[in-house]
């Protein structure tokens, strides 16, 4: 699978991850193990840990730093006693989403799905759901990149069925 294992991890337990575009990231083991996909890579293959590069086929290097940052912070939140105040977690999450375009958000959802981490996936999909709440049909279409394949008659009929939902929408 990962044929080129060129990276060396001299530090205590670091794992090298390779993003889809070939860039390498050295990550502390506990952080890397937050990702089920990486974890499953090593199950029953403990010897491999030291010098193996884990290829992450669906994760662009653009999003890796942010995603790793999320894991680091959230695992720290989970371990801390007493648990951190809700405001602190909220502030981190809000800062995380700030300046992220819809497209970037979608890409990260795909990444979280590939990495198989429930916490990140739930967090990102909830953010996506919030972004389309109370928005027009056109907005939702653009958000998901959906192509409208209804005939005008079909669309008119379906819109009429759901007419009640369309007043009081937010500005797009």
């Amino acid at each position, binding site marked *: 699978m990962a044929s080129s294992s060129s990276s060396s991890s001299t530090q205590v337990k670091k794992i090298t991850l390779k993003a889809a575009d070939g860039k390498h990231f050295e990550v502390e083991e506990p952080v890397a193990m937050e990702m089920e996909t990486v974890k499953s890579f090593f199950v029953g293959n403990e010897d491999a840990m030291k010098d193996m590069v884990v290829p992450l086929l669906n994760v662009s290097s653009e999003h890796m730093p942010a995603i790793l940052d999320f894991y680091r912070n959230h695992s720290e939140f989970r371990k801390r006693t007493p648990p951190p105040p809700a405001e602190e977690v909220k502030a981190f999450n809000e800062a995380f989403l700030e300046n992220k375009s819809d497209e970037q958000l979608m*890409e990260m959802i795909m990444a979280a799905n590939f990495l198989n981490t429930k916490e990140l996936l739930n967090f990102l999909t909830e953010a996506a759901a919030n972004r389309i*709440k109370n928005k027009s049909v056109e907005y939702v279409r653009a958000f998901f990149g959906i192509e409208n*394949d209804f005939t005008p008659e079909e669309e008119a009929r379906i819109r009429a069925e759901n007419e009640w939902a369309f007043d009081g929408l937010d500005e797009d």
Partner: protein
Amino acid sequence: MASGAATTVDGSVFSISTVHPDIIQTHILTQLDGPTLAAAACTSSYFHSLTRNEKLWQEICASAWPSVKDPRVQTLISMFPSGHKSLFSDSFPVLDLQRPQSKHTLDSLPSTTELISAVDIFYENNLLFSKVKETETVTGWFQFPPFRIDLLGEKELVPTPISVAGESDVLLKQLEDKLSLSWIIIDSSGRKAVNLSSRWPVSVEQHWLTREVQVKYAVIVAGDDQRWGSFSTREFVEFEILVTLGGKEGGEMYVKEVCMQMKDMEEKNLSGRDSLVIIQNCIANGKRKQGKRDEGKHKYKEFRVRKTEKKDRKQKVERFLNIGCFSGFIAFCSFKLWVMLLYSICNYSAS
């Protein structure tokens, strides 16, 4: 699969434009509220089919109205054209029925044997009370007396976390802001539902002596009698839901009464039979729209102004009629006197 993908991805430009459908279905659609899910249904045929998932709507309905989880209600919903989606689009938006219906439409309504009420009261998003009640609509017990559905038994009390302390103005304001009520009515024959509550209170009043608080929810709809226009006392009618709360100073409030009635513009109660026609009309023909929070209160105020205007007009007419009657009476009396006089003259001359 992984190795195959690795060869193609390795070194090539990485891009993702669309999210996997299963992520959309299992992670995003499940987090949407009803109106957004309805908007998503209109985007494409694929999304339309995804959003027809009965479970999605079932979850949305159950979290909005825990009462609909009742097996009796579930059986009725299973007969709705689109199951829980129909229930939601019938009952979530605000009822809007301002235009009169023709006599023909009213006569052609299906005959129903039972109305099922599914009621939920929330205080600050926490469920206080949830109840399903069946009301038969066939016997004279329902048809002739004033229409009234009571949800609580005579000595039944529902505890609340609302404490009675401090200024009563503050308490009333608190209730107005936080106590919401939904009253869904399902017609056992019609496979449709309607919500007859304004969701948020239209008025909150405290009785000066008993200190009991009455929270009122009201929906105003076109009545069944539009023939005389603004002279009709049933040009518009009011569904009135009253929640009565009691409680001692320092303790917590409890709900002691939850009831629905229907009143005309002179505040007279409508009979069961008349109310049933209007309820069925609302279910079948009422438009549904996504109302703003203060809309119910605003409409209620308008209705009150209309009622006062009608009362004034009626008084004027009555005054006019009184004068008319009086002069008529005088005319009649003088005529009778004249006849009697003539009669006695004739009698006298005959003898």
